[in-house]
């Protein structure tokens, strides 16, 4: 049964003991569904403007299309599972808080790190791409002077971090507006290329004339394309991080997340369609700004300017949302003493996790400037892979998380704002596709995959041996829920 409930149901069984009270200030509860949409889509939409097309280089044009579909199924499952669990676990930290209540502290620590790395690396990639965009777009629009990429990277991250520092309502209201403009730019491009009439300006004959053009590296290439197929939707699960700041998480999270994934599925389809019909796949597979390039190919200057603006806004929205999400995860771990408690502070005036926001700024800047510093733009792929892999590890956690959530608190024992249909099909599907994408990452970035897992293993050992002794055991369970079944 799928439902968004308006009032709590009767909960059978003995009443739950009261949750341990949080000491001190709390985050502001000011967000609604449009902010959640702006956060989720804002983080992801940049993936349509750049990044998804590396899937074309990995597996050809049809490989990228299949990746868009398969990974789209993965993220639909993520959205369904997150909507159910987060509408019940309305706390900052999102999946981190879920892990604390369903799996255990060490898993929660790992999930917290997955979230921080996923969003911080994505933020670094956004800032890095923005600096390349400034160079590329200014050149395409007629400026031939030099553009200082360091200045763009540092300024973008600092200004967005300051915005986040000052308050979540303004941050995500701005994200909603600039994300909306970026999405409209894609729709306008579809009409500008007469996408509704595929035989007029778009050309697909190059794709259909020979298998070598559609699937140049065979079906293994399709697997390899899955890794960058993630880029179409990577980060939509970030909506969960704002749960504690929603006026009604039970309403806002499912509504914002589900409309967000629908928006992204539409954007992904439009993006592939106009780019595949306009650019040769050999070029598309390495392009830094595929949608902007497609607009340039039409020869319409106003369209090119609109897509330039859309591309810049999309990177800004993504970096902005990433700062919001990474800081919430870091803050939540500090609040529970999983990390130094100093990070768990809330600004007395702006009600934001200001220390977590500031602490992560130099990390993001360091990774964003590295490809520029070494003059190796291709290192961006490695940084993106850190983000993708951290996300993948988190998705693999969501499978046992969902099974245990339903088993420890069966339907009817908890008030769920949303109950997703067809359980356990979404969880099983998610697990299978996540495994496929892990294999795809092995094909292209095996060293990075092993390195990242070793990093998480070392961090886990550090947590168990040195850190967990500062954590109060029973106080970690913060939800006012009944005792889990079987315990």
């Amino acid at each position, binding site marked *: 049964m799928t439902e968004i409930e308006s009032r709590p149901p009767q909960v059978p069984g003995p009443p739950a003991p009261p949750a341990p009270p949080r000491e001190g200030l709390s985050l502001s509860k000011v967000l609604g569904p449009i902010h959640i949409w702006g956060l989720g889509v804002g983080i992801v939409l940049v993936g349509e403007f750049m990044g998804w097309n590396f899937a074309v280089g990995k597996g050809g044009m049809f490989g990228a299309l299949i990746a868009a579909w398969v990974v789209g199924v993965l993220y639909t499952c993520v959205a369904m599972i997150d909507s159910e669990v987060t509408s019940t676990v309305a706390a900052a930290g999102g999946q981190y808080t879920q892990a604390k209540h369903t799996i255990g502290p060490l*898993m929660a620590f790992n999930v917290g790190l997955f979230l921080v790395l996923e969003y911080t690396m994505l933020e670094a990639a956004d800032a890095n791409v923005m600096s390349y965009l400034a160079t590329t777009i200014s050149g395409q629009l007629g400026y031939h002077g030099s553009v200082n990429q360091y200045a763009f990277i540092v300024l973008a991250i600092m200004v967005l971090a300051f915005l986040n520092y000052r308050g979540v309502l303004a941050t995500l209201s701005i994200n909603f507006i600039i994300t909306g403009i970026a999405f409209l730019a894609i729709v306008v491009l579809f009409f500008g290329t007469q996408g509704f009439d595929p035989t007029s300006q778009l050309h697909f004959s*190059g794709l259909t004339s020979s298998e070598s053009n559609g699937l140049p*590296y065979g079906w293994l290439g399709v697997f390899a394309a899955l890794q960058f197929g993630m880029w179409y939707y990577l980060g939509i699960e970030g909506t969960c991080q704002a749960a504690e700041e929603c006026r009604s998480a039970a309403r806002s999270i499912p509504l914002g997340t589900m409309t967000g994934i629908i928006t992204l599925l539409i954007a992904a389809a439009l993006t592939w369609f106009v780019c595949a019909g306009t650019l*040769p796949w050999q070029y598309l597979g390495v392009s830094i700004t595929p949608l902007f390039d497609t607009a340039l*190919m039409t020869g319409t200057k106003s369209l090119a300017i609109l897509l330039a603006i859309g591309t810049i806004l999309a990177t800004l929205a993504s970096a902005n949302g990433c700062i919001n999400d990474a800081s919430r995860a870091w803050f939540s771990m500090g609040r529970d003493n999983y990390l130094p408690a100093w990070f768990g502070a809330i600004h007395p005036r702006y009600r934001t996790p200001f220390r977590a926001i500031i602490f992560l700024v130099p990390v993001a800047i360091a990774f964003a400037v590295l490809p520029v510093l070494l003059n190796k733009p291709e290192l961006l792929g490695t940084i993106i892979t850190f983000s993708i892999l951290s996300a993948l590890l988190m998705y693999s956690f969501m499978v*046992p998380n969902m099974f245990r959530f339903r088993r420890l608190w069966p339907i009817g024992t908890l008030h769920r704002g949303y109950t997703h249909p067809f359980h356990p099909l979404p969880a099983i599907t998610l697990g299978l596709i996540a495994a496929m994408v892990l294999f795809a990452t092995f094909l292209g970035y095996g060293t990075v995959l*092993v390195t990242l897992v070793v*990093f998480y293993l070392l961090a886990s050992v550090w947590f168990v041996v040195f850190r967990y002794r500062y954590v*109060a055991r*029973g106080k970690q369970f913060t939800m006012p829920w009944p005792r889990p079944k079987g315990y």
Partner: protein
Amino acid sequence: MTDVNAASGVRVYQPPKQSPRGQLVDSVIILVLLMVVLFGVTYFVQSSTSATEVETRPLSELPITPTEKQQYAVAIEHGIVDLPTANQQVADNKQDSNKYPIAVGTLIITFGVIGIYLAFVYLVSFKEYREVIRERFGPPSSTASSPEADS
């Protein structure tokens, strides 16, 4: 350090309060771990790009479809790409069914490391979870069965 809860009779763990210096040290440790492992790998990883010099030929001689030649011509006209780069891209992307060779040994090692990591995390987490539930809700009732027994 543990106290006994008078109501439930459960031992409650009282964590030590970490000093500001200790908090700083822990912050530095996690930051150094992050930077050394990830920054180090990023520094040393070299992306595999085509190193071979490609002779620049006119579009008409490239082994691509007529539609692609037409698209490249438009792209060159609008300054999106130049002819030598187009030649390089076509050379880099020629059809190859063996582009992704799978080294079985590396595959086993990679997924072995992932398996060890996941096993460690889940086993320790389940053990810690019992401790959390016991302290939060009191000792398990006689009717409650273990979740492992349920499955």
